[in-house]
């Protein structure tokens, strides 16, 4: 892909992000931060490429170890971010419904 196609995707995604985030209810702003944190760890893709390439490229040793370190950090975020978001979201409950016996 050339630079301009990528830039087009980026600009459109900023607008999508703008509208999607405004629709997030303020009560869920903390889970929003936790989940954006988890998905921004998609940067793991770059770390994986460096780690995988380092294993087969001569002189790629340092690059590989940097990549592996990146994989560890991003994995902390991915697992931690999604898990803590799930834990938080599970706490949001509606008012208890009237007991079924009252029917």
């Amino acid at each position, binding site marked *: 892909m050339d*630079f301009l196609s*990528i830039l087009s995707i980026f*600009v459109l*995604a900023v607008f999508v*992000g*703008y509208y*999607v*985030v405004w629709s*997030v*209810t*303020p*009560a869920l*702003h*903390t889970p*929003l*931060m*936790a*989940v*954006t*944190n988890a*998905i*921004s760890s*998609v*940067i*793991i*893709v*770059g*770390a994986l*490429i*460096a*780690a*995988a*390439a*380092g294993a*087969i490229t001569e002189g*790629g040793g*340092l*690059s*590989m170890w*940097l990549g*592996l370190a*990146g*994989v*560890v*950090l*991003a*994995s*902390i*975020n991915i*697992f*931690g*971010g*999604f*898990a803590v*978001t*799930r834990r*938080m979201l599970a*706490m*949001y*409950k509606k008012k208890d419904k009237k007991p079924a016996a009252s029917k």
Partner: protein
Amino acid sequence: MEHAVAATPAWAVLAYLVAGVLFILSLRGLSSPESSQAGNRNGMIGMLIAVGTTLALHPTGLPLIIGAIAIGGGIGWVIAQRIQMTAMPELVAGFHSLVGMAAVLVGCAAYLNPAAFGIVDDAGAILAVSRVEMGLGVAIGAITFSGSIIAFLKLSGRMSGSPILLPGRHVLNLGVLAGILILTGVFATDAAAAAGQGPLLWIILALSFLIGVTLIIPIGGADMPVVISMLNSYSGWAAAAMGFTLQNTAMIITGALVGSSGAILSYIMCRAMNRSFISVIAGGFGADAGPAGEKGAAIQKSYKAGSADDAAFIMQNAESVIIVPGYGMAVSQAQHALREMGDLLKKEGVSVKYAIHPVAGRMPGHMNVLLAEANVPYDEVFELEDINSEFGQCDVAFVIGANDVTNPLAKTDKSSPIYGMPILDVEKAKTVLFVKRSMGGVGYAGVDNPVFYADNTMMLLADAKKMVENIVKGLNGGGH
């Protein structure tokens, strides 16, 4: 070693696109608590697709890679299970620092082994446009890292929340920032850098780590909601910059989403304090909220102090109570006792609601999470604009651990540092019960609050949690 990114097969491009769309849906799910769990699942599936696709494209060195994922994943999982909800702001700051560091590591790895990332020309030199993206990505990542570390230290109390003001810090910060941009330009045009040599990238990196620290240390504790949102945004832009380098749509879409998310949250927080983003970033506003305010103690005005039993009696005989929680509730962990108090009042037929100011606490939505943790149903919790008109008709406003967000001077006193900030109109309630540690402390902004001395206010001076527990005892004891 032919694994140039330009040759990414069509199925993989589509898979990354699907991952990007699932990330959009994961944020979309947060528009309501009902759809939020499904949204979170979409995010996980998207991440699985992105990681799986990458591993399928680059199936080498798998044992080490899987080991690295297992170590990181295990650490992340354990942290997520053990973390206290009150510690959520520092956890999020800590996580941001990891994204920043990961971006730095990826940028450096790409610089050291550019062929693996498909960013070299036929002669083996790193493309100029890739060097710009790499320079910016590494810089934003490094700022995110060191800035988030400072935010983490401040939020977790390992470092004072008070602003640390270096002399000439604005000149210093602007100078370093200009230096980073100029060096990035040089980095893009320098022949040695194209060959992967020379110290330019490392200098950019060092300067960026430095400015991350100097940008955040002058910002006070209660401005942290803005800082943490801003760092959230930066972590997104860092991911986007790396996405440009790798020409990866999943990274670009995610980076753009997260970048705009953080920017919008920063804007919402700034608006809720009626402060400009620039003034927050410039820092130096107020000391951290604490019991030490001499200014407040010097003003001798009369106020009514009450006991827990008085408060229990007043609320029992009220028809409606609106509870206004603030950072003080989080500090004393009073949310569970508060919910118990609310339950007892509801049993007595009192209507109980919660009113949340956008900047209550140390991060966006902080109070909502703590109340949810204490099993307060989310449909009893209201945002400022939805509930503010109800204070006029309510019998009791119960303020716990909040101060500046209830200060009517924000509406009337043009000289006040909080003038123009939208506030919760607690003073309009028939009775205001104000839980506060002591009369000595002033709010974060260092402004005295006239609500304390109003005729319809009763001050409940004690630790928030102890006071609420005693009120609960009073409600139980006086039940008949």
